[in-house]
């Protein structure tokens, strides 16, 4: 499946768009508290929070297949789990058919679980090894008291197994998960998920642990099930090619936020956000002759406990502008990357200009006062930084960091670097395509002056 997406349209097309809203999330946040060091553990004091999901608005229509796509740590799995109430939201609301499920407790959610099902990433781990297929697949029926007697139970289980292609069902009824292959297990998991007639199925990377040969089959099976049973899917994945094949609309996530959200065809044909562009560029090209030079994002996905200011993607973005939220941490990254490339002596000489580079690592510093190293004046530091800026302005591609620096001046024996005030990009609709994107570059002109 990991091929360059073809030009053909996605699975079910845009016909499903007309459905009624099934699940609506507004301002959804899921923050996980962190325990700090040893002392913090004893005192039980939280040391900040990981913002796994950080302010998300979504509308899922009946019959739609929504893809949540992003790198590891982007919060896509947490969002998927929160949508069906498996993880508690710390703020915001999720309404399922008009009912706010974030307010329901575990007990109140139980009747709804029948309608909101989940398929987990690892088919080997999501079946109880000590339970045979007959019991495992039919267990939702028992839990929700959906069958009157054993015969009906058996018939429903056989029907579900047939639907997912485990035929003849009689052969699989008495088997244990250990006797099945990965693809068969995932089919059994799907059978268990659909047996209680759910409306919404959250599939968390359902094919990532499977062999290449069975991935397409499982996806096709899921599409068949959707058609037959009138399901709505949330498909969580990092695999863009399968998302393109499978999803009607797609939400690209980065560090707990949606950066681009729209119909799959539009997102793939005309990516708006630099992160989406980078993701699409990262899909390997099978033909080396046709391979294009790619600009993959630099560095790693940042720590969600200490997200960058402004647009979370700006430290990796090749086209970032002044308002993207530049801060002291980015200066540190810039310097360290430079010193890594220099000869050790040269790097040490440049490093001695600064008293403490680590002080730049603090969060959310829009103005930073740099103490010069021993035997250096603030002017030396400024001189050095200006020199860097000039060097960068000649290099190609342009280093976007310097766009964010407003002024550099000496003050009280320190070199002060001031960055442009950060602004959070908000999802805004691009009228022509129906794609929403959170990027300063794509904002309508009217709102640029706002906030």
């Amino acid at each position: 499946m990991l091929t360059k997406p073809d030009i053909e349209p996605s699975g079910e097309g845009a016909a499903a768009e007309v459905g009624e809203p099934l699940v609506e999330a507004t301002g959804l946040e899921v923050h996980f508290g962190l325990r700090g060091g040893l002392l913090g553990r004893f005192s039980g004091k939280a040391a900040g929070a990981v913002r796994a999901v950080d302010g998300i608005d979504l509308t899922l229509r009946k019959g739609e297949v929504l893809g949540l796509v992003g790198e590891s740590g982007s919060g896509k799995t947490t969002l998927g789990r929160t949508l069906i109430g498996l993880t508690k939201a710390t703020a915001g609301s999720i309404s399922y058919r008009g009912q706010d499920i974030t307010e329901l407790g575990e007990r109140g959610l139980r009747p709804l679980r029948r309608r909101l099902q989940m398929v987990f990433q690892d088919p080997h781990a999501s079946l109880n090894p000590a339970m045979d297929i007959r019991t495992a697949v039919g267990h939702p029926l028992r839990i929700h008291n959906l069958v009157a007697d054993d015969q009906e139970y058996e018939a429903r289980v056989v029907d579900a197994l047939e639907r997912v292609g485990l035929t003849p069902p009689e052969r699989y009824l008495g088997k244990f998960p250990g006797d099945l292959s990965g693809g068969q297990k995932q089919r059994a998991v799907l059978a268990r998920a659909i047996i209680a007639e759910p409306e919404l199925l959250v599939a968390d990377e359902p094919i990532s642990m499977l062999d290449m040969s069975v991935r397409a089959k499982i996806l096709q099976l899921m599409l068949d099930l959707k058609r037959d049973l009138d399901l709505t899917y949330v498909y969580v994945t990092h695999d863009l090619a399968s998302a393109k094949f499978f999803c009607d609309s797609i939400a690209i996530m980065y560090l707990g936020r949606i950066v681009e959200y729209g119909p799959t065809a539009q997102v793939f044909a005309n990516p708006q956000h630099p992160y989406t562009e980078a993701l699409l560029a990262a899909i390997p090209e099978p033909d080396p002759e046709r391979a294009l030079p790619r600009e993959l994002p630099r560095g790693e996905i940042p720590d969600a406990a200490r997200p960058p200011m402004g647009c979370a993607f700006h430290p990796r973005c090749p086209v970032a502008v002044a308002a993207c939220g530049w801060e002291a941490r980015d200066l540190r990254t810039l310097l360290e990357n430079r010193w890594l490339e220099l000869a050790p002596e040269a790097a040490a000489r440049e490093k001695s200009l600064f008293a403490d580079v680590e002080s730049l690592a603090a969060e959310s510093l829009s103005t930073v006062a740099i103490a010069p190293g021993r035997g250096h004046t603030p002017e030396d530091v400024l001189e050095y930084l200006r020199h860097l800026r000039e060097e960068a302005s000649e290099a190609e591609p342009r280093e976007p960091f310097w766009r964010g620096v407003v002024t550099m001046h000496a003050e009280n024996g320190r070199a002060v670097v001031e960055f442009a005030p950060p602004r959070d990009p908000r999802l805004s609709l691009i009228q022509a395509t129906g794609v929403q994107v959170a990027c300063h570059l794509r904002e309508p002109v009217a709102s640029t002056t706002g906030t």
Partner: protein
Amino acid sequence: MATTTLPTGPIEPTVSAAASRFGGLRRIVSAIREARGVPKFMLWTGAAISALFVITAVFAPLIAPYSFDTYRSGGHNFPKQGSPDGTHWFGTTVQSLDVLSRTIYGARTALEVMVLAVIFSLILGVLLGLLAGYFGGWLDRILVLVMDALFAFPYLLLAIVAGFVFSGISGGGVVTAALSITVVYIPQYFRVVRASALSAREATFVEAARAMGAKPSVVIRKYLFGNVIQSVPVITTMNAADAIGTLAGLGFLGLGIQPTEAAEWGYDLDRAIDDVNAGMWWTCLYPGLAMVIAILGFTLLGEGLNDVLNPTMRRRRISKVLLPAHTRRRTVTAPALPDVPEGEAAK
């Protein structure tokens, strides 16, 4: 030549519904079947001795010549401190009781106490362990604290204290002895079960059960229990061996079962101490020997099970392939010896 018969029609499931009910134990059975070498020897020797012990205990009234408190038969009393002879194979005690009968009935007492103690501690320990492991939080903290406190006591001391407490409630019988031993063993089950429940709780299939809408009680019964119970048989057999020793210890100190209620090896040993100085070896030898053999049997069984079931101890052997010995080099003798019969050449 041999013909291959292909199965026609759908292959019927080989696992019956009854077997699937105890799916968790399926792995145990298959592991026992695969046992080889020393573990197999220990397992089967232990099983044989244990079976002997159980049979003796169950059929004690049929096997023993007299009852455990019989001191006269056929109109006259048994000899006092009589040495082993034709009528009293193992001799008699200072109270004119038949040592053979007391030893056999002692097995019965030991089995009763052992079974009760193991069942009580199994039920309580597994239940508490599951609850603490699954729910965590304050329940877990309190239970762990209590269990650790119990662990900190020397086990015999704990059994004595518990024995005192329970003897006030339920008298000096088998149940009291079993209960006081139960207190000692609950923490062992609790610890093991809690540890495996803690790790199983994080498993995806438990999460999946929650996502299905299963209640905690259902999750514990259907999803945790079967996966947690794997480690219990080993502790059970080890505890069974230990229970015999603890019971004897209590009896030796005169705190176990009242001598009027049942025959008890520990009590007999206590009474036999003075006899040893007088050169009477039979009153202490036979109960002591019985105890050693019973404990040995259950320990071997437990160790054997542990070796067989514990995946970190288990060594899967590759059985050596024995090839038939090299046959003589075949020499092709084509046209030179045309008169060799064809059948001979084929050999």
